[in-house]
Structures are given as C-alpha cells and as structure tokens.
C-alpha cells in the first residue's frame, strides 16, 4: 500500500529560517534510513509560500493569489510517498520523521490506486 506522508510547515519554515546544519544532517540521515528500509518511493520539500501562488475558483471565476499567506501552519511543507504494508506502518515512519525534523503536524493519507477505482 502506498501512503503520502505530508508534513505541515512551522512558522519558522514559513519565515524562511533555514534548517540548522544538524537538522539538515538529521533529515539526510532519515532519508537514507528510510531508503535502506526499502519504503521511500519519492519525496520533496517545498519553499515558503512567499515563493508560490494559489489558484482559487469560485463559481467558475478564477483568481490567482500570490503568496505569502497568513495561515502558515495550514500549509504543506513537503511530502514523501512510502510503500508500506499498512496505515499503522506508515504512521510509525511518520512518527520518526516528526521527531527528527521537529514537524508539529503530519498527515498520513493512502494513495488511491487503480484497484480502488474498480
């Protein structure tokens, strides 16, 4: 089963505070370890919302709103796609990641696969 593990921004991330070298090393080690566990399929992190934009559609009218946005903690900071055997396993990987990088919130969601659409 495939899960998308999304971690949310902290205010510091949104403010563009770069992770300390120790933190970067910890993240690197986590990535390496989850690759060694054979579970990590893909993953990316994103820049603060000031470097992004939002497309909103209301009643068919499209609005493009440039960042930054006020609700920093409601924004995704990055994701990983994990291949694991259960939701519980994905949660354990998310737990380790949260403790390591100091994320305050992580969502673990199952990726829709072809068999779900049958």
């Amino acid at each position, binding site marked *: 089963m495939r899960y998308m593990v999304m971690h949310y921004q902290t205010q510091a991330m949104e403010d563009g505070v770069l992770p300390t070298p120790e933190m970067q090393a910890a993240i690197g080690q986590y990535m*390496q*370890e989850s*690759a*060694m*566990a*054979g*579970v*990590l*399929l*893909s993953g990316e992190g994103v820049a603060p919302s000031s470097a992004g934009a939002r497309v909103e559609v209301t009643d068919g009218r499209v609005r493009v709103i440039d960042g930054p946005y006020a609700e920093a903690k409601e924004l995704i900071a990055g994701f990983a*796609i994990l*291949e694991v*055997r*259960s939701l*519980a*396993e994905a*949660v*354990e*990987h998310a*737990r*380790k990641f949260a*403790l390591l990088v100091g994320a305050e919130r992580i969502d673990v969601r199952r990726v829709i696969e*072809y*068999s779900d659409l049958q």
Partner: protein
Amino acid sequence: MEATDLPATLATVWRVESPRIIARLVRLVGDIDTAEELAQDTFVAAIEKWRREGIPNNPAAWLNTTARFLAVDLIRRRDTQRGKYQQVAATIPRTTELDIGQIVDGDLADDLLGLIFMSCHPVLSPDARSALTLKLVCGLNTGDVARAFLVPEPTIAQRIVRAKRTLAAANIRFELPGPTERPARLDAVREVIYLVFNEGYSATSGDRWIRNELCDEALRLGRMLASLTPNDTETLGLLALIEIQASRLVARVGPHGEPVLLMDQDRTRWDRLLIRRGLALNERIDQLRGTAGPYALQAAIAACHARATRAADTDWPRIAALYDGLAQIAPSPVVELNRAVATGRAFGPQAGLGIVRPLFDHPAMRNYHLLPAVAGDLCCSAGDHDEARQHFLRAAALATNGQERATMQQRAVQCAAHHVGSA
C-alpha cells in the same frame, strides 16, 4: 480518536524495526539464534514496560536502545564467564567501555548488508534463502511467509529452523564479504530477490492478490540492496527491471483474470511512479558506465517498453540490439527466442525466422509452446500462412493452459482462412 492499542502498535513497530534490530544484534553476537533470543527479550521487555507506562513517544528508539543494552549485557556476561576480560576490565574499565561502544554503534548499512548476505548464503538452498530473508530482512512472520508461498506454516517454520541449523553447522557468522568474494555473494542475493519477485509475478489468477505481496517484498529488498550498494550496476539493474515489471502488474490481467500480453496492455494503467523510478535507475546505470551485466541489459529492454506510450512507438531496433548483447553475455534459448521476436519486429520476419529456426534443434525447447507460437507469428507476417498454421497447431498441442491453447487454435484457423483465400 487517539490510537493507542498496545499489542497492535507493538506488532507494527516490530515489523518496521525488527530488521535493523536483528541485523545489529546478529553483528554483535554473531549468530541468528542468539540474536533472535535477544530480540524476543527486547520485545517482552517492551510489552511489560509499555503496559505499565504507556507507549513511549519514540517506540523505535526505545526498542533499539533496549536491544543494544541487552546485547552489551550478554557480551559482558560471556566475557566474564570466559574470565578473559575479568582482570583487564578491573584495571582499565574505560577502554573496554569505549570498545564496546564503538562496536555497538557501527554503521546500520553494514548491519543490514551483513544480515542480507547471511540469509542469502550460498550454503543454503534457494527455498531456504527466500524464507529466511523474508523473515529476517523483511520482518515477516512465519505465517506471512507461508501464506505468500502457498505452503503450510509448519513447512516454512521447519525450513527456517533447518536453514539456521545449516548456517550454524557450517560455522557461518555475521560477516561482510571482502572485495574478491563480494561479487559472487551479491549474485546470490540478487538471485533470491528475483526469485521472490517471480514467484509473485508468475502467479496464476486465483491467488494473484496474495502473491503480489511477494512482488512488494522483492521490491522492498531490491530497494534496500540498491541503497546499500548504490554503485553496483547489476543491483541497480535488477531493481530497475523489477520496478518496471511491477509497473504493469495491474495492466497484465484482464477483467476475467486472463493474462494480457505486453503489446495488448492498456498502457494508461501502467504505474507511472514505478516507471519513473525504473527509468531513473537506468540513467544512473548509464552514468556509472560499468560493463552492462544481464540484469542491467534486461532493465534497459524493459525501459524501452516503458518509454513507449503506445505499443506502436516501441523502439524495436534498440531492443533487438540489447538482446544481441544479452545473448552474448547470458546466452540461453529463451533469450534467443526473445531476440528473434525483437529482430523480427525491427528488421522484418525473415530476420526473426533466421534466429528462430536453429532453436527447433535445441533439446530444451522441444516442448516449449512459445517456440512454435513465435515461429507461427513470424511466418504469418512473412505471408507464409501454411507453415504458420502448422506452427500454431503445434503450439496449441504443447500449451498447458487452456486459454493459450484456445488462442493458438484460433490463430491456426485464421491462417487456414488466409491460405485458402490466397490460393
């Protein structure tokens, strides 16, 4: 709702953490049985402590620390029993402390690699290697392994016990093979991974869902091995090959469970993420510029199919060239037959027939229904419908599966119609 089911959480953490815990323990104590006993003790300690105090914030770290503590304790007790370090420890305890610390906190990559080499050791039979690897390196329990291989649980349990006994009898301890030994040992590991993958991949329709789990476990092992030996082109090749093959798992089965051939698959159903991973691995192999081995070449062939959005876009000349290479380094009649198909598609049916005809004299191919099936297909393209018909009838007679027999008979009938029509 907060999820705090102790037995379930512990079981999950165990599945996730046990490979690295076992790997480290095996390195510390040398043999699998002692390592498993210590792991069991760790597990029991966790149940007792967590039941009293709740699940810790970082259960994985707790298990690792406890296992480490129990191992160090055992090593100390062993040493004391031997009386070897007793005096030394009394005079310079700090040094002993440091040494154990260094040994205990070695590289996780080495631990895992050592465990993989041990479970895939050439002294073990292929069945024993797969069972032991799935249990120790993938963290499956005996029941899971039995279910995946469609054999009774006691059979697998016995297989694992016997495998461990064989390792012990041959005095095989945790070790990282040196540079001269390593290529052959890696071959043995790759063989296990590909075997497990194919066990799942070639499953018949009824048990397909369960057996696909074997493909998942093989992929997990392949991904582990590739991250542990990132510059080994054959390991990357094997992983690329199975990532791309697995990308077609859904598309290769029709609505009634019947197999769908590669050229007839709905390519929009191929798993794009797995294809991207497979193609990226192929690029990495190219960058490493090593001599391409059999897995890397098969991966390159698989990549040609994966890149073609429509079957008609397939780069057959490249596939034919890759099969030429494969036929040179890993010659086999089956490779030759595939080379005939690719060459036929790339350079016309006569070129393909030139490769197919000598295969009819090969003893291993005598009862292989795909040989006349391919020959029939090539003759059909060449316009020789009478000979094609003979081949298809022969293929139908040899086919062991009802579906394939029906397809071959149908093609023979179509040839007959052609033959009459053109006469």
